[in-house]
């Protein structure tokens, strides 16, 4: 198995999933996901809808509670504290502190519609990180410039195109200086024309060394940017490896049939 041969595993991985299981009622959505995401790398998750990709991503920042298995981000157990072999639920305050360092970008952007672009970006740094307004604004202006929207700081989200909204959402997540960025189908709700701008921002982010996990259907992006490609189906990891090898020559029949429908 050469899952992530590119980087030497000298330090703890940014994300370590150990047989993660998740059920909604009697429906088991994740059936033991084990995965490692080394620091500074990009992992793309692909698979048919209902395969559990998004649920797995949401478990990583505790938007969903894991039923079995362990999830570690930067060496910290997510959602619980382990002491003497016993698990204790984290208080809402401690759980919020864990989420603070994990940025998330949603399929439907989820920008705050009652706040301008700038207010969206400075909201959490001021409220959660207790930054001064001037400091937050300065950082927000830098980030908005980076995503190419410096001139739209005063606009409300409803006045922006989907692609612009998603780039604001990326800037909003980056404003918390996260160590890990999660992208849940960031381009699925966009017109084909607007996808490129968002992918360009994500490509630059990856090049800057950010650790990223991306649920996507953009195979071109996965081939070009990802260090690791994970194919999921039915709540399990069917296959993972180097994206170019996996896309060119999948070992599993299930992967092959999924990819053939896509192209």
């Amino acid at each position, binding site marked *: 198995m050469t899952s992530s041969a590119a980087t030497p595993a000298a330090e703890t991985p940014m994300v370590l999933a150990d047989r993660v299981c998740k059920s909604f009622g009697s429906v088991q959505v994740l059936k033991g996901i084990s995965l490692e995401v080394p620091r500074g790398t990009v992992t793309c998750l692909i698979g048919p809808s209902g395969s559990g990709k998004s649920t797995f991503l949401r478990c990583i*920042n505790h*938007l969903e509670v894991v039923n079995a298995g362990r999830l570690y981000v930067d060496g910290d157990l997510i959602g619980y504290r382990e002491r003497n072999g016993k698990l204790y639920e984290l208080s*809402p*305050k401690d759980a*919020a*502190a864990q*989420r*603070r360092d*994990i*940025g*998330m970008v*949603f399929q*439907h952007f*989820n*920008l*705050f*519609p*009652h*706040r*301008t672009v700038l207010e969206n970006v400075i*909201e*959490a740094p001021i*409220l*959660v990180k207790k930054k001064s307004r001037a400091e937050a604004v300065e950082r927000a202006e830098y980030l908005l410039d980076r995503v*190419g929207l410096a*001139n*739209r700081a*005063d*606009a*409300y*989200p*409803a*006045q922006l*195109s989907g*692609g*612009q909204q998603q780039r604001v959402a990326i800037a*909003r*997540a980056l404003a*918390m200086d996260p160590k890990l960025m999660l992208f849940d189908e960031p381009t699925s709700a966009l017109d084909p024309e*607007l996808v490129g*701008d968002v992918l360009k921002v994500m490509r630059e982010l990856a090049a800057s060394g950010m650790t990223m996990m991306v649920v996507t259907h953009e195979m071109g992006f996965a081939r070009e940017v990802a260090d690791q490609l994970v194919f999921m189906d039915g709540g399990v990891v069917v296959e993972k490896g180097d994206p170019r090898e996996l896309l060119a020559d999948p070992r599993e029949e299930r992967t092959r049939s999924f990819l053939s429908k896509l192209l």
Partner: protein
Amino acid sequence: MTSPNPDTVAGEPEPIKAVPLRHPGQWVAAAIIIVLAALFVYGAATNEAYAWGTYGRYLFDQRVMSGVGYTLALTVLSMVIAIVLGVVLAVMRLSPNPVLRGTAWVYLWVFRGTPVYVQLVFWGLFPAIYKKIDLGIPFVHQFAHIDIQTLNAAFLFAVIGLGLNEAAYMAEIVRAGVSSVGEGQVEASVALGMSWSQTMRRTVLPQAMRVIIPPTGNELISMLKTTSLVAAVPLTLDLYGRVRDISGVNFEPIPLLMVASTWYLIVTSILMVGQFYLERYYAKGATRALTARQLKAMAAEDATDAGGAAGGPGAGRTTGGENA
């Protein structure tokens, strides 16, 4: 005259100048309404039953003015109780705790299921039902007791009666507002590390307000008029009660009803103006339309980089500039 051959005209086409569509129906309707209104005004002015002299004498009567004051006080105090209790009941209804949910449901069932007039009569009879209130540990020790029957508290009971009834309606309005805010908004806030109370205060409630404010304004205006039912308690210090007292002496109910109606209309109109501004404030970001400030900034921007192609009208920037 437009040129028959568009190829010969270079550049911009000339602005459209079309003959506007006529609306004869509007003019006919307006004429009929004006005639009917004129007839009514003439009739009212000449009909002695309206007794305009009496109307003028009592419009600013000291007792009427004090009635307006009591009506306003009843409205404001009972709405404050209703809004505070309504938010509490709404949170209880949305809570995962089944005991709280059930309690709120029973409250709503009782207070929405019986007429407010009947409830006010009940509050008036409260001293007859509960003669005194003991404060303390039940069955063990009482350290204070209040004798209700000696308490002259019609105003207090009126406020409580109106407030508790209204709270049931406010609870449903607040609940609808909170439910109208998308789940994604809470997720986005939580993912940014915001706590539950920060999420409620900064993300959910400001957006819920847009849904909560208009019906709350309606409830406030409706409450202003419902105060005229406090005669059931009985309390007669409010506007309608005072006007009825006066007409009971001078036997001229019609001009005095006109006095009361005038004041109810004046207060309602003031409230409607306030509601307009409140709604506009909470509608921020709800539409794609540009705000006055944004349009001004854009015009200034256009003015500075004018001199290029005279073509593109400024409105083209609204959604354009994707790769600016």
